[in-house]
């Protein structure tokens, strides 16, 4: 991605999508992307381009997510759904290890059973907010002293096709978190979908040599300057249409200073500690492990499953859990996401995708809670200054 001149943007017509699928499958990728299922746009394995959610958009609000029919046939005209790409790269269940206990003449030994090759996925339709989320997961799971083998295997084999955002949802605030509706890096190919004038097409930019290779196998033509500008304008305008804003300055300090805030009681009176926010969050990475055996007890497996800091067991030490109250568990989640993530991994853990707002059954809004914490601290400081 560096050192070479960026190739000029190309145009793919909507009729070119099947060829894109073929090019990806021919390279051994399983294509995953958005599709309509159970009243939502989910991330799933796609057999063909026809499974993309053509003509579907979504309406989101705090505690609300509904499909809506669009007036055009856009395939990527929707903001974030209930799943993120972590369902693919950091799956909800993964086998870490398995082994057999073998008793022979030389005594007992434990023999590892072979590990499966990691699957190779092409991620089609990754929003720029989610591209950033993948970058954050890279840092968390492979950027430290030990690299997570499951994530690493899937990530190494992944092909990323970003689709820029031209219609942010009512719960979106990526620009507050330092991102935006445009994709700058972190992709193999980046598409911008255009449907104006009944002409359904994609402006395509290449991010890597692998991306260029795939693009070469798809019918495309040079993108004229007007179309490229049109696409860039649509993306730039989207930045002004965010449905939410987050206070941007000094969030780590704000949350550290709010450790003993009375506001946690207020949040806890609404929060069900269900953990939905952690499941839908594209960067929430926490897991636990389960060891299981077959009936003989001589074959054992260790599975890793998603966990949530809202679960009572999450902080269990012998003698009890550290975080028993809802107050402390919400404080842990939001403080980690916006504050201590910086200490641990050098960035915020939030990309402003808005999923946690839409999928909270109680409609708790992370941007609103931060605003409240900020104004309470300001008020407390103002009160102290009074004579």
């Amino acid at each position: 991605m560096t050192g070479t001149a960026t190739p000029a943007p190309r145009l793919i017509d909507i009729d070119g999508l099947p060829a894109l699928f073929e090019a990806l499958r021919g390279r051994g990728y399983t294509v995953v992307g958005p599709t309509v299922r159970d009243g939502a746009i989910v991330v799933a394995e796609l057999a063909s381009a026809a499974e993309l959610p053509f003509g579907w958009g979504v309406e989101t609000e705090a505690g609300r997510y509904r499909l809506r029919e669009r007036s055009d046939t856009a395939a990527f005209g929707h903001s974030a759904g209930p799943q993120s790409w972590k369902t693919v790269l950091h799956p909800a269940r993964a086998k870490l290890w398995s082994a057999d206990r073998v008793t022979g003449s030389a005594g007992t030994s434990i023999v590892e059973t072979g590990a499966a090759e990691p699957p190779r996925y092409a991620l089609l339709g990754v929003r720029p907010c989610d591209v950033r989320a993948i970058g954050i997961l890279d840092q968390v799971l492979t950027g430290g002293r030990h690299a997570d083998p499951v994530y690493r295997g899937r990530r190494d084999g992944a092909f990323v096709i970003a689709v820029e955002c031209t219609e942010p949802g009512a719960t979106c605030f990526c620009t507050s978190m330092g991102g935006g509706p445009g994709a700058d890096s972190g992709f193999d190919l980046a598409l911008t979908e255009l449907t104006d004038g009944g002409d359904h097409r994609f402006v395509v930019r290449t991010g890597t040599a692998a991306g260029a290779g795939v693009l070469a196998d798809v019918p495309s033509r040079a993108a004229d300057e007007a179309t490229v500008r049109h696409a860039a304008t649509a993306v730039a305008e989207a930045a002004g249409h965010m449905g939410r804003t987050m206070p941007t300055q000094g969030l780590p300090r704000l949350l550290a200073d709010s450790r003993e805030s009375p506001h946690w009681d207020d949040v806890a009176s609404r929060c069900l500690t269900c953990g939905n926010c952690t499941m839908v969050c594209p960067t929430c990475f926490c897991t636990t492990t389960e060891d299981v055996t077959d009936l003989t007890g001589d074959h054992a497996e260790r599975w890793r499953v998603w966990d949530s800091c809202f679960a009572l067991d999450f902080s269990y030490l012998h003698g009890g859990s550290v975080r028993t109250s809802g107050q402390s568990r919400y404080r842990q989640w939001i403080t980690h996401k916006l504050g201590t993530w910086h200490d641990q991994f050098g960035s915020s853990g939030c990309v402003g995708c808005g999923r946690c707002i839409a999928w909270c059954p109680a409609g708790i809004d992370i941007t609103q809670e931060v605003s409240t914490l900020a104004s309470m601290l300001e008020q407390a400081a103002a009160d102290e200054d009074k004579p």
Partner: protein
Amino acid sequence: MTGQRTAQRTAQPTAPPAPAGPAAETPAVPRFYRVASRREDTADTVTLELTEPAQPVPAFAPGQFAMLTAFGVGEVPISVSGLGDSGGGRARRLEHTLRAVGAVTRALHAAPPGSLIGVRGPFGTGWDVASAAGRDIVIVAGGIGLAPLRPVVLSALADRSRYGRIVLLAGARTPGDLLYAGELERWSRDGVEVAVTVDRADSAWSGEVGLVTALIEPAGLAPGNSVAFVCGPDIMMRFTADALAARGLPASRIRVSLERNMRCGAGWCGHCQLGPLLVCRDGPVVSYDRAAPLMRVREL
């Protein structure tokens, strides 16, 4: 631990960065060791000596921990209590002292000699005993907290001339819960100033009764020239560290070993957070100036 903190990278679709250092070797997979000996220290606590690994894990430093696997049952974090043989930078023989409190520790506690136990690690920060060179070493242990401190005593004794006084203050619930009773006597003969107290005495006990913090004053420490190593229940560590600090020992020279629910040991699972710390990575050994503000927050 020297966390390799880098600024957040943007996603690299085809080539996530290679992790640094030799520890990149499959830390997710347990290596099985054979139980060479099993010593019952107290009614519920044993010390297991682990040997003969098919593939030895890297050598441990005092204060680091392993994730120990009871085959088919589960895995728990246990600090190393004896470094055994670390020839060639590999842990060929190891000791772990553990108390039976849950399903996994009960299975490990019951592991007979000859059985196999999985080891992952080493994980976390160590006590950094060598940093106390030229100073007095003050060790304060509560209950099984003595186990992670045993390698501190052993390594200080092995290099006795580098250190000033070695003071060991140990507390236990009852005389029967006192770990390493035989070794305490030996260490005492070898020049360690050992003082012991129990919460509840029995008829045979003629020693001190009370909290371990009560042993600090009589020990006559030289706070200006001491490094303290403290391990035990959270509240015991706080009161001990505060008492040492009140005597003039700087919090930066008091080290505590934090306990959190570590599921992976490698910084991936998120369970062991204490505010900004990932205890498996930034701890378990943390200096008290960092730990104190976090330990004082309820339910953090």
